[in-house]
């Protein structure tokens, strides 16, 4: 899979714990029409896995339920490679977190 700049940016956003599609759109400033296909491609290649939140919880909070994306170990390796290839991308987000923070 080609490691394009949008892909690298999306990976970096995931590394920093932005797990929802709309979060990735928001923090990267990349268009939604680009972010979602990138996420789907990453998932297809096994770099990312996704899960749906409990619909009951979404209902309680009066909003649609969300899909959460998370890097697999392959994905983390790819993210390291991406950060090396595009050093500027890392600076967008500041220091990296090694672990994904628990879902708030």
């Amino acid at each position, binding site marked *: 899979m080609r490691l394009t700049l949008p892909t690298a940016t999306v990976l970096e956003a995931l590394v920093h714990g932005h797990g*929802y*599609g709309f979060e990735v*759109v*928001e923090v990267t400033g990349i268009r*939604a029409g680009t972010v979602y296909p990138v996420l789907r491609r990453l998932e297809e290649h096994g770099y990312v896995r996704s899960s749906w939140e409990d619909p009951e919880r979404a209902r309680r909070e009066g909003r649609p339920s*969300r899909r959460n994306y998370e890097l697999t170990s392959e994905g983390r390796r790819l993210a390291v490679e991406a950060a090396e290839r595009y050093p500027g991308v890392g600076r967008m987000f500041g220091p990296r977190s090694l672990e994904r923070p628990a879902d708030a």
Partner: protein
Amino acid sequence: MTGARFVVRLVSILVPSDRRERWVDEWVAELHHYEVHLKGGGRSASSTAARVCLRAIESVGDAAWLRWRQGPPGSTGLVRHSLVGLVRRPSFTLSVIATLGLGLGASTAIFTLADALLLRPLPFPEPERLVVVSDARSPNRGVDAESLDFWREQDRLFLDVRARVGTSVVLTGAGQARSYRAESVEPGFLDVLGVRPILGRPFTADDAAGEARVVLLADEVWREAFARDRDVVGRSIELNGEAHTVIGVLPPGVRRMPGGLVHLLLPMREPPFARLTTLARLHPDIPIDVAQQRVRELWTGWSEERGLTDSGQVTLFSLDRGQGSETRNGLLALAAAVACLFLTACANAAGLLLLRGATRTPEFQLRAAIGASRYSLVGLVLVESLILAMAAGAFGLLVAWWSVRGLLGLMPSTVVRFSYNPISIDERVFAFGFALTVLTGLAFGLVPAMRAGRAVAARAGRTVTASGSDVRLRAMLQVTQVALAMLLLVGAGLFGRSFERLMDDDPGYDPASLVALELTSLERLRGQERTTAAAQALDERLRGLPGVAGVTRSGGTGFLFDYTLETEERPAWDPPTIYMPHQYVDTAFFNTMGIALRAGRGFVASDVDNGALVIIDEDLADALWPNEPAVGRRFRTRDDEWLTVIGVTENVKLDGPIEPFGPYYIFYPASPEELRNGTVAIRSVGDPRDLTRPIRATVSEVDPDQPIRSLLTGTEVTRETVADTRLLAVITRYLAVAGLLLAVVGVYGFVSFSVAQRHREIGIRVALGADIPRVVGAVFRSGLGLGMVGVATGLVGVFAASRFLPVLLYETQPLDPLVIAFAATALLVACAGALLGPAHRAASADPADTLRSE
């Protein structure tokens, strides 16, 4: 979010069915989050809805990707089939895309302008509560400085009242000197507007009193002269040769203040004039009409208390947009014209889609026969229509972008520069037009698909004729197109004639061979003496340029405002016009400008010191001394000195054919010193455009730091004065041509399709002995019949619209019979032209062919 949700659902048709539901859920979550985010940012509901809709349209990319990943299409193969279908019929595909795209683009462009200039609220909080307290005659007259505190004390009426004065400054020390428009304002002025600097701080009372000079930059200057440098705050810049410290930058929305375009704000130190213009914010509990009444009462009381007679009336003016009613009406007329074109485009595309639907009935029936479900047939048309609408939308966006740029070039520069709101393509307008485009595509694409879905596949493969209701619907669409084209043609004809009359109007001078040069005055930097010397040196050099027949200077047109005139023979008389321009000119003026003297003589150098000698134009001479010679007579404005007329010129219209300042002109003689900052007019032997380059070069040779404010040919100056009419004339001409083409294409499509459908019938008729002329006659009858019904319907529209047109026309009747006759003839001839092809095909119908194909 209903609209956006609808878009996502529509787009989801592209997504493979096993993933569709989850895909929709994810996008709905995305849109929900975005909507919450936008609402948190304080956007209005309509702007939020439009943005969320645009975000929803982005889902197309995602859906298309998924569809593509799915590999070769499955049972439906909607997208591929649709694309193949569209590519195989390039003329149909391109016609629909071009038609809808042009309509959408043109409408978006015009509504963008109308929205920025007329509809969008001013970019200040609660702009309806901003008022100008002023002498009742004009908001620019303001109030006298002494009464300012009195108004400020009325705290039950106003939250605050602050004064402002427009001025211009020269920025030096950063490359070439640049002239900027500045407002000198009292501290607290920005609070009245409700604006805070995005960088730095607003003015305080200390800024107006202290030693240090400070300045606030408008966004435009920050961008142009300081490249958006955030460290500009605290920097020292040189204005009119004095150091000023930048203390802040205004937000980008604030490009204009009540007094006009603004580049810089300076604190008002002490009132520079006896009269000051004001800006006040009304108390939120006071309705404006109540405030109006209170202001009058308060003023009368205050004047009486102070024993003032002749203090005039004071009133409140709401903060208007600074656009004249001509621009307003003009833009509204354009909006109507462009709406006509958009409807024509939609009707045309609808006709094309119906036609295509009708030709595809056999295909649908065949598909139904081999097991395609109704859903898949409808889906096929839906996807096809969506693809067409998307392509048309993309093309339309390009057209809109290009048109807005073109339109800005055609608009009077004052209108564009004085717009409170920046003019850029408005996403709400585009989203609306786009939605309409998609709906047209879907609605008219679906009719035949639904019918096909229902159809029993009994007669698959046989040629079928379209149903009667289908034909009626298409005939109606056709009539609508012709009627709208008629409206557009008449509009274009009227505005075109009006513009022609304006340009043909004799201005009393010869603009075609003139160039007008205005320089930014550097007098505050250089002093009077150096400025005079530079002006004289420049004039001398200009006179020496090859191709120059004469150079003259005239001084900034002053006005007599609301004046009274009297002659020795007749007592005081109030002319019907409230302005009278008076111009200071040198001795070469009349010769160089090509203004003929009807009586008396021109100015000579000694006239300057000779006291009150003037030259007036014929209009004024006739008004003062009807049917009598004016030379040697005297007149004056109330209590002023007597002026002796030494010459009378032909009627001049120096401020354009519309004569915004009335028909009367007075010319005073002036010395070169007095005219050092005047406008330079250069008469050319050949094409004046050839002179602009050498003139620029000469200006910078004489003084490399001298900025040129404007350099225009006389024709360009005249055009600028009639820019409103020109804008209407040029745009409606394009719209009318587009409307005519669309109508003709529509008629052609309609008739040629019905000829194709009736091919068999015509063939049989010919076989049975019908003669060719009769067959051809039938084709023309059906086509021209449609055209005539359309023209007649259009005429009704023209009559209805004629009530609103007179304000926009110059010496042209709204029901000009020539224009109407021309429009009707042009339409019918064009329709007849469009019928030649189908008539030829009908005439060459071969009965043998028909029988073979059966």
